[in-house]
């Protein structure tokens, strides 16, 4: 299983050195990866249909509770088959679609990486492992959306997509960790036991909010849906695969996977119904105003994702079964429509619905694929879409209170609009008269038209013979969501009931809409007038506002003036030290602890203060530096008074060198400007004196503390006895703490080298680093 998951990763790594080999016709060979994986997963169908689940466990980072913990049950099997099945077709299709593209090898590398991540995501039985793969799908999607990297729009779209899904990802991570933290495990199977505990916990709403944030951003729910239409900048096979059939369903998958742990409460149901409901309607509504085929498909995909979230929100058995059915239904017809669109784009060079027509005459197999897919999406009887629609209505009707009316009508309207959108993409380009300019269009390589046809045919086959898949695939998937066995065979014919009536209404109104309404660029313009209300616009505005704020904030804080920085640092210190000093007990002042002051000290102190005044008030840099050195020397003199002449000598040397170094640096600076006004000066004086006062007070506090002289006594007693030196200070410097001295010498040498280099080396700005 681990090999199956990581196979895609190996292939993409292998493509790095071997990519050149696979740029030509050999690219088809890479499709062996998804097809063999498809066969591998298909072999598990009987086992899973028996209600078993297969687990695999390999340790990875046990310290963090993250292991390669995979589990194949009905739900993950459904997704795995979708991923590898549609993956196979997309791999094949792309080998022809992107034939001769200079980055074909990179394309397959990203695609294989994506497939591996997506498989990992649906097979992971550990929420953090799931999250790892979740993020990897976002990253591979980033690279695939930006695949045409020289196009500014592609880059922008991929950034937007990454920002939205990545941002949601971090919130999801927080949610999953919170969940794991509370239940004491990251393993999904173990979390099931903590389900009731989690639901009763005060943080339960927070967990849900964070996890929903992740799921909604990934599955393009309103108001985070806007990255998905932008993602259509990716090559069409990618749109079909990632942004319709698989990756965008990751959020739905997550919700379905966590349903047995977190689902079924009010906090779960209402947000999902509301967001899913809005999304399904919003997406469907927007799709009918678009004229670009891929845009129509993007918005109808958003709508379909909304339906899925909506169904998981309802959370009844019917609804979850409907979700399982609809995942498959949608993947089949939508992928088929996308791939059809890809061929149209490839052969005619346009995706504008208003330009296309009559293409059945030249692209017959494709027209059949489009038609069948459109019919399935329309939910005509004997198509798989019919069953899907049926199940959705069943689910909405079997809710409680006034919900059936509201939800069902919402679902009906959405379906009518979706039907229209499906017909627009699957039928419109092939119907009517063939324009002159497309006379020469011919059928592409068979690898490009068989995949959509195959998908569309499957939609019909599963619709006509639901027994093919219900017990083997769909019931186990729904079982995994509900976490208890249940059995409800899919039926094509429920008798004459309300559901059938609703399906009929949907069909009739949708068909009517298609006949009445002609798509035009005007309708696009009419909806664009409301763009200022669109989430994309609002998020964009928000982002710009944040940027502006960030710019102002950074420039205010980091304004380039050293003195301002120093002021703030000292200020920070004064505040903290002052706070500590004046709280938590009285300030002690015991004059008896202080030693008498000598004349020398007063004199040196006088010079010191004078030098300080000079430093601060002079308008010449050189004077300031000289005055500072006087301060330094005064301090050295104080060392002399306190019986440390050796130390003083060292200090003299260092001071001298530092001054020289500084003078050299200062000479290269622009002339001195006195920018401070009177107010600034007063402010600075105040800060400086309060800082000085606080340090003095603190020092006095420390002096009151009885000195523990064990160490200094040891030095005094042993300097001669053990270290054979008569001068204690010397012995400390060169023996007891000789290492300090040794490396202070090094400091001095480095400074000396610095002086030499500053004096001699002047690189020109044009020279290299």
């Amino acid at each position: 299983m681990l090999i199956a998951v990581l196979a895609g990763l190996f292939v993409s790594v292998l493509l790095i050195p071997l990519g050149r080999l696979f740029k030509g016709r050999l690219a088809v060979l890479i499709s062996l990866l998804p097809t063999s994986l498809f066969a591998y997963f298909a072999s598990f169908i009987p086992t899973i249909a028996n209600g078993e689940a297969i687990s695999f466990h390999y340790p990875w980072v046990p310290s963090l509770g993250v292991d390669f913990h995979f589990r194949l049950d009905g739900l993950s099997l459904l997704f795995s088959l979708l991923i590898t099945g549609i993956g196979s077709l997309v791999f094949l299709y792309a080998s022809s679609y992107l034939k001769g593209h200079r980055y074909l090898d990179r394309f397959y590398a990203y695609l294989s990486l994506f497939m591996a991540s997506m498989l990992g995501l649906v097979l992971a039985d550990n929420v953090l492992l799931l999250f790892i793969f979740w993020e990897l799908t976002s990253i591979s999607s980033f690279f695939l959306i930006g695949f045409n990297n020289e196009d500014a729009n592609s880059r922008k779209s991929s950034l937007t997509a990454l920002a939205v899904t990545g941002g949601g990802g971090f919130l999801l991570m927080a949610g999953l960790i919170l969940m794991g933290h509370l239940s004491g495990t990251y393993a999904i199977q173990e979390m099931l036991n903590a389900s009731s505990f989690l639901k009763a916990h005060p943080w339960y709403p927070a967990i849900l909010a964070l996890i929903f944030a992740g799921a909604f951003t990934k599955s393009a729910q309103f108001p985070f849906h806007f990255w998905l239409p932008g993602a259509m900048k990716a090559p069409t096979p990618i749109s079909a695969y990632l942004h319709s059939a698989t990756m965008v369903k990751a959020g739905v998958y997550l919700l379905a996977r966590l349903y047995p742990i977190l689902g079924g409460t009010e906090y779960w149901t209402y947000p999902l119904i509301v967001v899913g409901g809005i999304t399904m309607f919003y997406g469907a509504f927007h799709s009918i105003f678009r004229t670009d085929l891929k845009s129509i498909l993007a918005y109808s995909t958003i709508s379909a994702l909304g339906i899925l979230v909506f169904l998981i929100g309802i959370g009844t058995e019917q609804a979850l079964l409907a979700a399982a059915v609809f995942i498959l239904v949608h993947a089949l017809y939508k992928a088929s429509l996308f791939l059809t669109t890809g061929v149209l784009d490839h052969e005619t060079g346009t995706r504008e619905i208003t330009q296309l027509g009559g293409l059945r005459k030249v692209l017959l197999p494709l027209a059949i694929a489009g038609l069948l897919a459109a019919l399935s999406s329309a939910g005509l009887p004997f198509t798989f879409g019919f069953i899907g629609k049926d199940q959705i209505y069943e689910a909405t009707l079997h809710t409680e209170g006034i919900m059936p009316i509201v939800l069902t009508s919402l679902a009906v309207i959405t379906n009518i609009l979706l039907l229209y959108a499906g017909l627009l993409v699957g039928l419109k380009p092939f119907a009517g008269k063939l324009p002159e300019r497309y006379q020469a269009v011919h059928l592409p390589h068979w690898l490009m038209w068989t995949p959509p046809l195959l998908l569309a045919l499957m939609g019909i086959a599963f619709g006509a013979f639901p027994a093919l898949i219900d017990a083997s695939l769909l019931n186990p998937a729904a079982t995994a969501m509900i976490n208890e066995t249940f059995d409800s065979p899919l039926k094509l014919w429920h008798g004459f009931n309300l559901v059938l009536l609703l399906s009929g209404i949907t069909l009739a109104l949708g068909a009517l809409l298609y006949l009445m309404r002609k798509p035009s660029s005007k309708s696009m313009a009419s909806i664009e007038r409301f763009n200022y209300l669109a989430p994309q616009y609002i998020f964009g505005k928000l982002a710009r506002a944040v940027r502006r704020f960030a710019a102002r904030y950074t420039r205010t804080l980091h304004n380039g003036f050293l003195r301002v920085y120093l002021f703030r640092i000292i200020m920070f210190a004064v505040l903290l030290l002052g706070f500590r000093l004046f709280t938590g007990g009285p300030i002690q002042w015991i004059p008896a602890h202080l030693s008498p002051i000598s004349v020398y000290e007063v004199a040196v102190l006088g010079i010191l203060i004078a030098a300080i005044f000079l430093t601060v008030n002079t308008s010449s840099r050189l004077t300031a530096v000289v005055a500072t050195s006087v301060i330094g020397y005064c301090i050295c003199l104080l060392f002399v008074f306190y019986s440390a002449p050796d130390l003083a000598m060292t200090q003299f040397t260092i001071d001298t060198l530092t001054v020289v170094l500084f003078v050299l640096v200062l000479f290269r600076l622009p002339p001195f400007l006195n920018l401070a006004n009177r107010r600034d000066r007063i402010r600075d004086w105040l800060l400086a004196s309060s800082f000085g006062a606080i340090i003095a007070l603190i020092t006095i506090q420390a002096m009151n503390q009885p000195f523990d002289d064990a160490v200094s006594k040891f030095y005094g007693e042993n300097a001669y006895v053990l270290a054979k030196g008569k001068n204690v200070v010397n012995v400390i410097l060169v023996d007891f703490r000789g290492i300090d001295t040794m490396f202070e010498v090094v400091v001095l040498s480095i400074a000396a080298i610095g002086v030499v280099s500053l004096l001699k080396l002047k690189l020109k700005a044009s020279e290299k680093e």
Partner: protein
Amino acid sequence: MTDNTLILSVIIHLFTAIVLLALWRKTVAQRIISVVGSVVAMVIAIRLFTAVWDNGILTMQAAGWDAPFGITFVADVFSSTMVLLTSFSGIAVSIYSATGVARGRMLYGYFPILHLLLMGLNGAFLTGDIFNLYVWFEVIIIASFVLMTLGGRRAQIEGSVKYMAMNVLASTFFLTGIGILYGITGTLNMADLSLKIAALENRKLVDIVSIFFIVGFGIKSAVFPLYFWLPSSYHTPPSAVAAIFGGLLTKVGIYALFRVFTLIFIPDEFLRTLLVVLAIFTILTGSFGAVIKNNIRRVFSYLIVCHIGFMVGGLGMYSEIAITGALFYLIHDMMVKTNIFLIAGLIRKLRGTMNMDKLGGLYAEYPLLSLVVALVLFSLVGIPPLSGFWPKIYLFEAGFMDAQYPLLVAIIIGSFVTLYVIAKLWAKVFWKNQPTLPAEENYTDEFKPMSAFRKSLLVVPIVFLMAIALYIGLAAENVALVAKHIARDMKDMTPYIEAVLGTNVSP
């Protein structure tokens, strides 16, 4: 256990530097010696790490004066890990410098000072004496200052004045703190200080003194509102130097914070809250700065600030999990930050600029290199399962455990901004076509005409550090064990104290 060879990590760089000084102006020989020195240093560091990991804490009493009378050097898992990581960065920068640094700089002592800087770093990590730590800080400051000014360009000088002024201020705070600390305890040995401070009755004084260390190390590690020196200076020196700075300099500050505030001062409620608040602002400040900058190195500089907040936040939460997370982050950060500055330097070699608007087309022209860079950048962002991802799990867990929601929000914002900024950088520098520049800015690729050997000198270090980052990400378990071990040591200092002072610690 006493093991005097632990000082070899310091001596090797001193020795290398002396040899290099003897080879003054012989730049070819210097390059070779520098790389050889770094390789030997790495071998020593690996040996030290395994010895400590297997046998526990090693100590050396300098000049044979027993603690607390002499200066003690201590290698525990924390310091030996830091030494090990420093040796990785060191070797990478040493190799990279061979072609990445102008010959003019080598003529004026670039290599010896680089090794003295590395020596200072190792010294700081290994010392068990607070004043000796100050001495190492001096070595680090002066060496980094000289490296920063070396070349004497105007921007360099301006940046280094700010750098020097604020770092000297940091040292002043640090030194004042040491002075008072000595005044109230009469000792400088950190293990001894740990005991004496714990026994001191005047808690107020202890609380006051701890502030000096917060401010001093806070400046060093570029914590808000003390970070100003970093974005003022990191974009000025050559990239090899910026790499050492970005990867290691702020991290010494972080090291010192962690060491002093787990061994000597145990933060009280106020300090912990303070650290968390500072961490939040540090993350936000770094994020805001990174969002608006357009020069690669400036963006990276602000990202350093941002990520410092993650570690300080971990220290502020102070639980074992939080500290583990912060340490894991530290390990990841040192390897990745060094590398991104090397990458910035390489980009400059390719295109002559670091301005993102003027860059482009690297993805088409250098696909393999782009892949390497992408892996490094994604490690930085923490795209799972790369290195930056794992520590966040600890930090999130700790945040929830400790109910530190504002900090969690800040970490999420910081992570998001990092992701966005890096993706933007990728799109602009790698994906976008090379924009046409006005004639006066025309630049010929310095990299292309180089011999394969010289090219590899630039690329191998980047790949080497990338491989380490990949190891941190993919073999996260091993790193997690190290981080956990260190965090446990920090929670129970008895082994450290006993190793330094002998076994006579009364409970």
